[in-house]
């Protein structure tokens, strides 16, 4: 049984050599970049908007208890049933409990990364319930029995040919290369599911404390249908999704869309404040909101990295990450991939098992630059590295750095090391690029420059010593 770190290395090696995969992802993200930049440029002052969004989220998370209390009070005032889940198991039990109590048979789901996080689908299917993902991307990966590839674009890694083959195999539809026809196939199949489902399950992008509402951002309309037709609606969300006031959405909805998909606004942004109210013609008779902790409070307890809880799950950091673009979303083997996933997974699932994601980064900082709420993502990767090394130092590394530290800023020892280096360099050619090469990690794919015939320090010394002096 491979460790997560070993599994990551194996898969990363394979994916980085898969040029078809690289091309597909670069093409998809290239299109996204064009629209994102255009939409962002329409903002009169994106940096100011970003700072304000960061401050609102700071306020929300740093007074989380007060906001949650207010949210729950306002939700319950209009008939919503609120449940609290400390762990993934508790959340699954709560949701299963509701479904069993209602004697439901089929569940239609709209996209919820928290449901991936708690492995809800497996639990529901094991308990004998039919679960259908209604978001097209999620529907596709559900048929393929694989997890979503990207938190916003679950099927980004598939070509239309892949999807056509999948539909033919699983749904018996005629093959087609036309994206519109493929979408219509899914639309037809899912139509009946909405109408006949007993339970509609959703996630949420935000929760408004002031007015007791959850807010869902989408393009397809599947969440709206999931929240409109079934008699019971269940919404699962992480406790950190809070925003203090309704009007905060005037900033967050366009910013989420701009960075998430490159749109000024997504097609549907809907706020749900309860089950069907008196004199409303439709809507669920019961509305349940499940608030999920699942170790978010541990991240909250780390003031240095607490801002990682400001995340609005836009996927922007994934889209700009050169590591993500080269290894792909599945390689991470986490619910949340990309930079945000690398930052938070050690907190949510264990530092030693998941520290490798924090090391698998060149720290280029593109993620921090793009984050609409100014999370200090790449610096948190450094913080995770420090925490991991302090908790469980590697004897080899610590020794190596101690030795290095002892030599590097001591001129005489530095000179000795240089002389040794020049000596061994002569033999390097014999082993270069082979497993015997101590620099194999570098030379397996790159040439290594030699130590110069005259180093800078040697030049400087000879210059200062004047003409006729030894270097």
């Amino acid at each position, binding site marked *: 049984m491979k460790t997560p770190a070993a599994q990551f*290395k194996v898969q*990363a*090696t394979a994916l*980085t*050599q898969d040029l078809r995969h*690289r091309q597909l992802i*670069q093409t998809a993200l290239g299109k996204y*970049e064009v629209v994102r930049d255009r939409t962002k440029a329409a903002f009169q002052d994106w940096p100011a908007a970003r700072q304000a969004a960061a401050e609102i989220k700071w306020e929300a998370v740093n007074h989380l208890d007060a906001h949650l209390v207010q949210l729950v009070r306002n939700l319950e005032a209009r008939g919503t049933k609120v449940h609290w889940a400390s762990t993934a198991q508790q959340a699954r039990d709560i949701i299963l409990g509701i479904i069993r109590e209602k004697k439901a048979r089929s569940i239609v789901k709209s996209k919820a990364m928290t449901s991936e996080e708690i492995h809800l689908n497996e639990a529901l299917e094991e308990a004998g319930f039919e679960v259908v993902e209604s978001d097209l991307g999620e529907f596709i990966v559900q048929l393929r029995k694989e997890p979503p590839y990207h938190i916003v674009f679950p099927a980004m890694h598939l070509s239309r040919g892949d999807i056509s083959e999948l539909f033919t195999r699983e749904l018996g539809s005629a093959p087609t290369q036309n994206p519109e026809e493929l979408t219509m196939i899914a639309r037809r199949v899912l139509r009946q599911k909405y109408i006949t489902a007993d339970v509609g399950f959703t996630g949420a992008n935000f929760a408004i404390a002031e007015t007791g509402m959850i807010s869902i951002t989408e393009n397809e309309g599947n969440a709206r249908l999931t929240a409109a037709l079934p008699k019971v609606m269940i919404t699962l969300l992480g406790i950190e999704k809070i925003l203090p006031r309704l009007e905060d959405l005037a900033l967050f909805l366009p910013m989420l869309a701009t960075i998430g998909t490159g749109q000024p606004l997504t097609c549907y942004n809907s706020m749900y404040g309860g089950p069907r109210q008196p004199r409303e013609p439709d809507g669920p008779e019961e509305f349940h909101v499940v608030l999920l902790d699942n170790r978010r409070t541990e991240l909250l307890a780390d003031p240095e990295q607490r801002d990682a809880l400001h995340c609005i799950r836009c996927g922007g950091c994934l889209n700009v990450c*050169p*590591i993500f673009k*080269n*290894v792909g979303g599945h390689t991470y083997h986490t619910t949340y991939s990309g930079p945000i996933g690398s930052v938070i997974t050690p907190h949510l699932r264990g530092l030693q098992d998941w520290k490798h994601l924090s*090391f*698998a*980064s*060149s*720290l*280029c*900082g*593109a993620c*921090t*630059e793009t984050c609409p709420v100014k999370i200090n993502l790449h610096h948190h990767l*450094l913080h995770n*590295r*420090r*925490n*991991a*090394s*302090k908790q469980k*130092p590697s004897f080899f*590394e*610590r020794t190596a*750095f*101690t030795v*290095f*530290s002892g030599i*590097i*800023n*001591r*001129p005489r020892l*530095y000179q000795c090391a*240089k002389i040794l*280096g020049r000596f061994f360099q002569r033999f390097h050619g014999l082993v270069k690029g082979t497993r015997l090469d101590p620099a194999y*990690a*570098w030379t397996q*794919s*790159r*040439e*290594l*420059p*030699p*130590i*110069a015939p*005259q*180093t*800078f*320090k040697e*030049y*400087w*010394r000879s210059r200062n010593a004047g003409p006729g002096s030894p270097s």
Partner: protein
Amino acid sequence: MIVTLFIPCFVDLMFPQVGISMVQILERLGHRVECPEEIACCGQPAYNSGYWDEARPVAAKVIERLKDSEVVVIASGSCGAMIHVFYPELFAGTPLADAAKELAGKCFEFSDFLVTKLGQTNLGARFPAKVTFHDGCHGLRELRTYQQPRRLLAEVKGLELVEMKEKVCCGFGGTFAAKFPMISTAMGDVRCTMAKDTGAEYIVSNDSSCLMHIQGLLDRQGSRMKTIHLAEILART
């Protein structure tokens, strides 16, 4: 003024011409240059690997040696970022906290020093060639150097600058290059392809560590493209 030039170990050992070029340029501008013998590392390798306790003595020596300097110029964007951005965090809550902040305040990356501090853009340089510029990530995002190298290159006689289609990491990332060589190489390949697509003869950068990685890949591929540091171009008359 007296400019303290901090030459990190890989520039000293493998790219001395970069340091020599910087000395020539600064002296031509009428400044006295001093290069401290005793220090060769800012402490970034240990810091980046999470060994902050092991990084501190290395960094402390740098702070100590440079405390009397009027101004410090660093021959590498990533070392510059280490001192400018990360030293304050590394030494927060320690007796060297103030000294670290003070050093961070007087420390400059080379192109930033010339353009922002000295107000110089035309150095009388001549380099007739088509080049493209690769921004090292630390310089670009931690130190915010973007305009400065370009303003300097704009004044170089005979030089034609073509930009690559986007700013993206070359994949070096310090110890990352050795810990995750396959990802590092893939990222480098993507960058080299972008550079080749510009039709430039040279890839220029203000960070030798990026150039070491890119040149290493180009050499392995047998490409005719060459890398060169910004300072080397500016020193050519």
